[in-house]
């Protein structure tokens, strides 16, 4: 029988390594054990994948949505909400935030969705291989203009961001390295370069054009050779800065809010030991993400970091939909749901820039906080939703509840959420107005349903609820 602490720890793991889970799922996983659950999350292939044909059958527009305004992330949101492989999906989101690429320039959702597919398939594998695939991704090639990077006219956009944002971080290379790196990637382009037709664009494929590649000698990070792109990636991966950079990203995404990427060159990590452990594991395992994540989730610094980071909008939206339930069937309205993270400041498949989104408190401003509160409160207010029904059944099973008991039970079922005594007292004061929670007459049931709805709305609007 799992203890309350086992439940709280499992809820923590599922918020971080996934998008949250129902109490039923948390209890079942806690019964299996923490390390066993970590292994299951790290080996997603043992679980059935989301059946995208279900989605295509009922919402065909979600498949290769082309330029459907604002709704290109519908398929992805459907995966986040319904996946039985939550870490696989979470890692796709992780890499999308690191290798940020957007339709603001790529124009078509399809190619950016292909990147998500790549991250889903390879995101827990080898970083070096992932980086090589990334360099061949047509969306990335177009996003950072490598298709305009020619042997006789070098375009530095990809070369620079590969070093600055995808591997080492600013301050670890010179302007000459940027130039040489860019030269090594000349000739890495895609086909076909045809204008978009009325029904969309032809799919893009990577192409290496030897005649457009600068095959002469290059000096990159102190090494000399007639480097091509793969050689550059090999050298990048050997750099200690790369391991540290990935470790800091993992820490910021999975453990606790960190300073933002541009600050890393000048701001030491929150927890140097954690970064050292992660970066050592990353290098010792030959850049294996699965091995690095295993160490992360089983570490004390992870387990002790409950509610140490603010939820991203994607986590808010997918997490709330998983909590309230009823979004398993691909219903109309999925597209509008997929726009919600954007309204909170995270337009999926369309990050503000190649730096991705700023996280932590930068998710929060007066507008985005209001959107989070309003979206979440609106969904939990609906007592007909299966997830809310399940909460009500659990409350009813406790019999008549005093206002204190009512508040404590709801805080437990919505997390378990930890709040300061003053906050709990405010909620109790609020619940006091209705007396104890009763279910003995139809009128009492109706009244109690309303009270649960209101209390849950108040709980999701708490500052404490904004943390994962």
């Amino acid at each position, binding site marked *: 029988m799992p203890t309350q602490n086992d439940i709280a720890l499992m809820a923590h793991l599922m918020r971080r390594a996934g998008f949250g889970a129902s109490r039923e799922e948390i209890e079942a996983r806690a019964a299996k054990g923490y390390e066993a659950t970590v292994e299951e999350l790290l080996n997603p292939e043992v679980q059935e994948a989301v059946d995208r044909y279900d989605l295509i059958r009922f919402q065909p527009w979600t498949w290769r949505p082309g330029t459907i305004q604002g709704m290109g992330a519908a398929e992805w949101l459907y995966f986040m909400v319904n996946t039985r492989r939550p870490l696989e999906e979470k890692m796709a989101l992780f890499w999308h935030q690191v290798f940020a690429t957007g339709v603001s320039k790529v124009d078509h959702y399809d190619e950016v969705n292909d990147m998500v597919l790549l991250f889903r398939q390879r995101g827990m594998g080898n970083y070096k291989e992932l980086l090589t695939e990334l360099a061949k991704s047509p969306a990335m090639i177009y996003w950072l203009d490598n298709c305009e990077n020619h042997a006789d006219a070098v375009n530095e956009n990809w070369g620079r961001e590969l070093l600055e944002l995808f591997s080492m971080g600013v301050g670890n290379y010179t302007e000459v390295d940027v130039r040489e790196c860019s030269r090594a990637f000349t000739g890495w382009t895609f086909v076909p370069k045809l204008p978009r037709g009325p029904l969309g664009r032809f799919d893009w494929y990577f192409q290496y054009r030897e005649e457009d590649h600068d095959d002469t000698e290059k000096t990159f990070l102190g090494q000399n050779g007639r480097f091509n792109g793969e050689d550059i990636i090999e050298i990048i991966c050997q750099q200690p800065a790369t391991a540290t950079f990935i470790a800091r990203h993992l820490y910021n995404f999975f453990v606790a809010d960190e300073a933002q990427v541009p600050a890393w060159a000048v701001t030491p990590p929150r927890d140097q030991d954690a970064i050292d452990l992660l970066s050592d594991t990353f290098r010792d395992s030959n850049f294996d993400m699965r091995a690095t994540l295993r160490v992360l989730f089983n570490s004390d610094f992870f387990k002790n970091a409950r509610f140490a980071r603010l939820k991203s909008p994607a986590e808010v939206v997918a997490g709330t939909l998983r909590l309230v339930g009823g979004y398993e069937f691909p219903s109309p309205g999925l597209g509008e749901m997929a726009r919600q993270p954007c*309204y909170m400041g995270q337009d999926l498949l369309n990050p503000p*820039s190649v730096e991705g989104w700023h996280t*932590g408190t930068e998710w929060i401003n007066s*507008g985005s906080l209001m959107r989070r*509160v309003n979206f979440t409160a609106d969904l939990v207010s609906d007592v007909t939703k299966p997830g809310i029904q399940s909460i009500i059944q659990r409350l009813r099973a406790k019999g008549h509840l005093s206002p204190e008991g009512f508040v404590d039970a709801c805080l437990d079922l919505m997390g378990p959420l930890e709040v300061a005594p003053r906050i709990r007292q405010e909620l109790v004061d609020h619940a006091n107005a209705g007396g104890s929670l009763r279910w003995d007459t139809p009128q009492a049931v109706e009244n109690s349903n309303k009270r649960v709805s209101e209390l849950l709305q108040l709980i999701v609007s708490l500052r404490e609820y904004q943390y994962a």
Partner: protein
Amino acid sequence: MTSTKKDPVLVVLQLTGGNDYLNTVIPYTDPLYRDNRPVVGVPDARILKLNDTIGLHPELAPIKAMYQQGQVAIIHGVGYANSPRSHFRSMDIWHTCEPDKLGTEGWLGRTCREIDPNKENVVTAVSFGPSLPRALALPGVPVACVDDLQSYGMLTSITGEEQRSRILDRFSRLYMPTIGQGAVMDYLGQTGLDSMKGADILKAAPERYSSTIEYSDTTISKKLKGIAQVHLANLGTRIFYCDHGSFDSHSNQVGMHDKLWKDVSNAVDEFFADLREHNASDNVIMLVFSEFGRRVHDNGSGTDHGAAGAVFVIGNSVKGGEYGEYPSTRPQDLEQGDLVPSTDFRGVYTTILEDWLRLDAAPLVGGKFEKPAFL
């Protein structure tokens, strides 16, 4: 200044992505311009000539008209030493005035605190857009961050006047500060309270607004219309912020740059026409900037990240004309292929802070800088 004791107002329009200076304010008589821009150069016949040396991009016609009425200051070669040529770092530098170390406080956040130290008005600064720009970020300084003025309010799922007032009352108690709860909780608490209060105040703006000006159906026109609505409602807002982009024209620059400037020029034109119609333009100036200019020589399709750029300051109270030196385009004068800044951006800020907002600029921009006299 023509009139009024109305408080001065600053509107900031950020051109995100690095606007190409050379193709915006074109040194058309400089023979090197043609040499450097074989692909993306603006044909001579299309250039809107301002004088014997410079002309504007063809899509800046509304800006040219305002320039000829003496309402536009063009400040040349604005930037700072050792441009990192990174969007993010450069934008951070413009936002925080910290070129040598990483800053987190925005210069307009500090300005806002100076204008309203006791936070008497939570809508002293209003930003239009989904996320708060770092320029306005300063813990404890409230900034209303609005996408759509019409639907702006907290816990709108709860209806019924009595139930609403009960729950909003509880919400504000839950968001009240507690000693020792930590900076992030403090920030969340203050943000929640401020946004609730701001929503109450801003609700009034679209209700009171009427105008004959038809704004274009573009994102930047929508933002500037929202700014006009709040300004015209006299809510005491002193700083407005919005952005448009992306100006990151590495490839296919020609059509892309045209469209961007068409939308921006029209929006600016509509905005000032709206203010003039309501006799509310005299106390407003607009600062238009980008994080950097672009490389002098084009790359065969677009232009890469550069250094110095142009700043526009627009408004009735502005002393129109050119300020500063257009940086030399001679190869031996370039740094890594880029124009070398001739005016420090903090000098431009200093003019605005001292001669418009009447504040002591040095602590806000981190030092003393020579200020171009456009006000």
